[in-house]
């Protein structure tokens, strides 16, 4: 097997053991990006000299020599973020962002910038100033968003790990669509410095996208600035809800997730408990209102009248509509956030994780990102946010784990959510689920990654 196809942790271990030369791996990675990226448009910029300099100066940290991609949501010292758009509403400049520093200090090498859904405002990844990113499982399908490029890059094995951001599911959706594991950390636990909304946001976090939970643990440890220790998910108490989020899903998704929950229960010798979680739909809207309100910080009507003409019409219209969101709804959203946090705190006295599908249907077509659910046809954005926003609104961590392949051989994923600060438990539970499935779904490769490997 080429070193390029090793897991993140195995690349790191092979370099540390002297079995793989980091400089050769870097060159092979750049060659692979050149070779495979045109089909998926996951990486929107490489900077080989900067990457070589980074490697030359890299400390012998836990990720020494491992190539990674960072989403176009943070600045690098040599490049301002573009947020997938022709322009940001906020000022942006090159700089040493938190995720960049986390990768640099761990010894990793940033080899490229990952594509993303324009302005972070979509769960599909089909709208971007760079052009749509494409799903390596089917390049006519959405890779998920907004961290579309990081996910597609890892799924196509351009790199073994990438840094995304999650404000309303933006790590978990692309992880699910691309068959990866993606962690949305507890709020404020992972590196966020340098994000253009750092001061305003109460929802967005950085998070790792990798093939499996062990790789997410290693990359996540760098982002957290502390080791995410391996624990034990034995006796896991799994909460399930009977609500739209778990029931208005494509039958193949429901069946795969139910089987995964049962497999997780069996593997951990745990138990499944039915729980009640009222007002989920209102909580989703509260999260949407909150992130849209926070993104208006410093935005004036005059600024809106000067939007760059290359921002997509859908975002130009929606950005302007944000100004009309009523203050009364914002206040109520804040009150509902308190209520949902208290309800979750009470629930997590009796359960360890809440489980439901990450996405209600497999990746939709790029040209028409609609999904068919028992309740009818919905835009993917409308349907996807149902299962994601609660974690962002309340601050709890969540993880998406691949649990099957559905129609068109496209990935299906289960989401697990835990109490504040229990990110490690989610990784433990995800690893238990991988074991229960014989690692079948985390080792499944999309067609693009099964091509003749580039030598390293």
């Amino acid at each position, binding site marked *: 097997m080429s070193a390029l196809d090793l897991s993140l942790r195995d690349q790191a271990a092979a370099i540390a053991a002297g079995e793989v030369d980091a400089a050769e791996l870097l060159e092979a990675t750049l060659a692979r990006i050149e070779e495979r990226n045109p089909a998926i448009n996951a990486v929107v910029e490489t900077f080989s000299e900067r990457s070589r300099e980074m490697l030359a100066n890299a400390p012998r940290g836990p990720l020494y020599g491992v190539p990674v991609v960072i989403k176009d949501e943070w600045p690098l010292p040599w490049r301002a973020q573009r947020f997938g758009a022709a322009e940001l509403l906020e000022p942006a400049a090159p700089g040493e962002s938190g995720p960049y520093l986390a990768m640099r200090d761990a010894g990793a090498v940033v080899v490229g910038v990952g594509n993303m859904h324009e302005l972070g405002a979509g769960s599909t990844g089909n709208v971007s100033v760079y052009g749509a990113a494409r799903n390596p499982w089917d390049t006519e399908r959405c890779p998920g968003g907004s961290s579309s490029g990081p996910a597609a890059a890892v799924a196509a094995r351009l790199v073994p790990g990438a840094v995304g951001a999650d404000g309303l599911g933006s790590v978990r959706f692309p992880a699910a669509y691309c068959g990866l594991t993606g962690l949305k950390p507890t709020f404020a636990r992972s590196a966020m410095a340098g994000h253009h909304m750092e001061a305003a946001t109460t929802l967005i976090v950085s998070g790792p996208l990798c093939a499996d939970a062990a790789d997410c643990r290693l990359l996540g440890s760098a982002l957290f600035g502390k080791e995410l220790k391996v624990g034990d998910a034995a006796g896991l108490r799994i909460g399930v809800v009977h609500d739209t989020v778990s029931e208005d899903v494509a039958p193949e998704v429901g069946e795969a997730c139910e089987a995964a929950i049962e497999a997780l229960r069996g593997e951990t010798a745990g138990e499944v408990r039915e729980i009640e979680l009222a007002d989920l*739909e209102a909580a989703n809207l509260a999260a949407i209102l909150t992130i849209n309100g926070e993104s208006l910080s410093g935005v004036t009507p005059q600024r809106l009248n000067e939007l760059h003409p290359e921002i997509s019409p859908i975002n130009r219209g929606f950005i302007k*509509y944000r*100004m009309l969101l*009523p203050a009364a709804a914002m206040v*109520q959203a804040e009150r509902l*956030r308190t209520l949902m946090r208290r309800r979750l705190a009470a629930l997590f006295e009796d359960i360890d994780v809440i489980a439901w599908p990450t996405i209600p249907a497999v990746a939709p077509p790029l040209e028409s990102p609609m999904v068919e659910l028992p309740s009818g046809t919905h835009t993917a954005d409308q349907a996807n946010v149902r299962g994601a926003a609660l974690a962002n609104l309340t601050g709890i961590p969540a993880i998406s784990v691949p649990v099957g392949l559905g129609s068109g051989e496209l990935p299906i994923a289960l989401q697990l959510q835990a109490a504040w600060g229990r990110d490690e438990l989610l990784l433990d539970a995800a690893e238990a689920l991988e074991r229960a499935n014989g690692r079948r779904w985390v080792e499944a490769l999309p067609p693009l990654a099964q091509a003749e490997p580039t030598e390293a």
Partner: protein
Amino acid sequence: MEATDRAEDFVPAGFASFGIEADEIELAIANAAHQMFWPGILALISLDLGELEPERNPDLSRAPEPA
């Protein structure tokens, strides 16, 4: 007075109030967003949260303080 979700009234009037310019496409998108969100916004505003006091500057990295 009965609530209305008539985007064709609300959105242009709102934009005009703020002096926000919008072309036909932007207006159509904003109208669609309004029709999508407004029923939920009305439901959210109408939600009876009783005497619930919101957390003051909540630390979202932790569980809430007991009420």
